[in-house]
């Protein structure tokens, strides 16, 4: 048996549903409902035109990108010092704290949907980007700490000590020496924060109404209220794949190590 056969078949399997979504997005509604066709008979860009010309549609993408970016920045900013502390020091309750952080990664979003709605309404953040960004911190911060801690533990402690002997202050060591050495770790952590915030919908949908509504929620609403417009739904779906593909391309060289959370 040829070695390349298995990966090729697997990738083919992965691409089939994506191909179908893409093919569907270039078909007219009549053609989709009219019967089975393997590729678009009357190629149309109509579905994409609808999305690019309607602010409620394209703002959905901006809303999603805005809260995902805010979330990634917050998660990394607080996770970096925490991961450093976990990888370098022992302190009272460190192991329990680490596990407690991980338990939040295990909390089913369905459990938190309703309390989150009440909490963020009561502090006046309902339907804002920052609310979704903060809510997604629940599972992204623990993950970022976990990943960064793995990468940081791989850096020998002698690096810290040499820097202090050379007269660096902690701040100058952390930003000018330590962070550049774990760039790949930071990239991977950012990738994961982006990924889990981008794909999550339950909390994002619960916490927003109009102003900060994510694209994924607009898709379900619009597609069902205006009849069964499968072509439009497919086009919107295809466009949600684009940012993810873009981000994967940037981290392609670290992706294998990154998925192992730096713990290979």
């Amino acid at each position, binding site marked *: 048996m040829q070695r390349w056969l*298995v*990966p090729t078949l697997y990738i083919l399997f992965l691409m089939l549903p994506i191909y179908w979504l893409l093919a569907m997005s270039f078909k007219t509604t009549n053609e989709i409902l009219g019967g089975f066709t393997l590729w678009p008979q009357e190629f149309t860009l109509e579905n994409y035109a609808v999305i690019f010309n309607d602010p409620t549609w394209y703002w959905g993408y901006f809303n999603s990108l805005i809260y995902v970016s805010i979330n990634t920045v917050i998660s990394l900013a607080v996770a970096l010092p925490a991961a450093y502390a976990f990888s370098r020091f022992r302190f009272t309750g460190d192991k329990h704290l680490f596990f407690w952080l991980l338990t939040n990664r295990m909390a*089913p979003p369905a*459990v938190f949907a*309703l309390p989150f709605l009440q909490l963020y309404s009561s502090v006046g953040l309902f339907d804002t980007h920052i609310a979704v960004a903060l809510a997604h911190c629940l599972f992204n911060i623990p993950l970022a*700490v976990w990943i960064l801690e793995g990468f940081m533990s791989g850096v020998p402690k002698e690096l810290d000590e040499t820097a202090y002997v050379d007269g660096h202050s902690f701040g100058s060591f952390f930003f000018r020496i330590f962070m550049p050495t774990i760039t790949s770790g930071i990239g991977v952590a950012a990738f994961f924060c982006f990924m889990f915030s981008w794909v999550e919908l339950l909390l994002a949908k619960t916490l927003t109404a109009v102003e900060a509504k994510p694209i*994924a929620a607009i898709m379900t609403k619009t597609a069902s209220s205006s009849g069964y417009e499968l072509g439009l739904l497919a086009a919107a779906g295809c466009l949600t794949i684009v940012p993810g593909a873009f981000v994967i391309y940037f981290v392609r060289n670290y992706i294998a190590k990154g998925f192992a959370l730096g713990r290979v």
Partner: protein
Amino acid sequence: MATKTHNERAWWFVLPVVLLVAFNALVPLMTVVNYSVQESFSQGVWFWSGVDWFEDTLNSSRFQAALGRQLMFTGVILAIEIPLGIAIALTMPKSGPWVPVCLVLMALPLLIPWNVVGAMWNIFALPDIGLLGYTVNALGIDYDYTQQPISAWITVIAMDVWHWTSLVVLLAYAGLASIPDAYYQAAKIDGAGRWAVFRHIELPKMNRVLTIAILLRFMDSFMIYTEPFVLTGGGPGNSTTFLSIDLVKKALGEFDLGPAAAMSLIYFLITLLVSWLFYTLMTRQEEG
């Protein structure tokens, strides 16, 4: 691993994380606990009801059925995705221009929003106009996931395998990539067969990443909501109503806050317990 020095000031470094996560975790969790021990007859009027809701939930056949389906689903997808992921990782090229191409293509499903995954499979598997559904029916097999529970189950499982096997592949591949060539050469000199190499070199080296893979897959599959909800809506009937779907139905649909909260806590505790077992196993490996 370097020995760590004792330093209580490290708490200042973790403080922002603790505050942010506590805001998100403790307040909602206390809200849930609060609901779970009270009974409400009208808006804002609450009575203490003790552990009644917990007993009701544990004894209700609806909860037991949803839990059963959930365990079955998680068991099946772990049994498929873990071996399949390892097998694919083993056959992937170790170096060369195809490696990044493979990795990028394989990671693609992981970055698609979960409801789009559901919608995509919904369209893909439709018996009359979907590529999969149409092909299967054309082969003479009667398949309609909107009507037949068995077909619905197969579709949900195929969707999850499609969505998440790549995570296992990437983790296993990372584990394999860390094995030095010298190991393989030594095995060759000893005349070890393919199975022996896998059993005594590759599997032990992948041990740690595989634990992570199982832990992540367990947690995420146990919490699954959006994909099956969009694909089948929990149907036909209740055949694919997993724990999260049932919970959201109860809390946001029927507004049965007390029972829903009790169910949430039981659900959370089960996830926590199993994950804790995995976590202890994992940290023991790292220390040992």
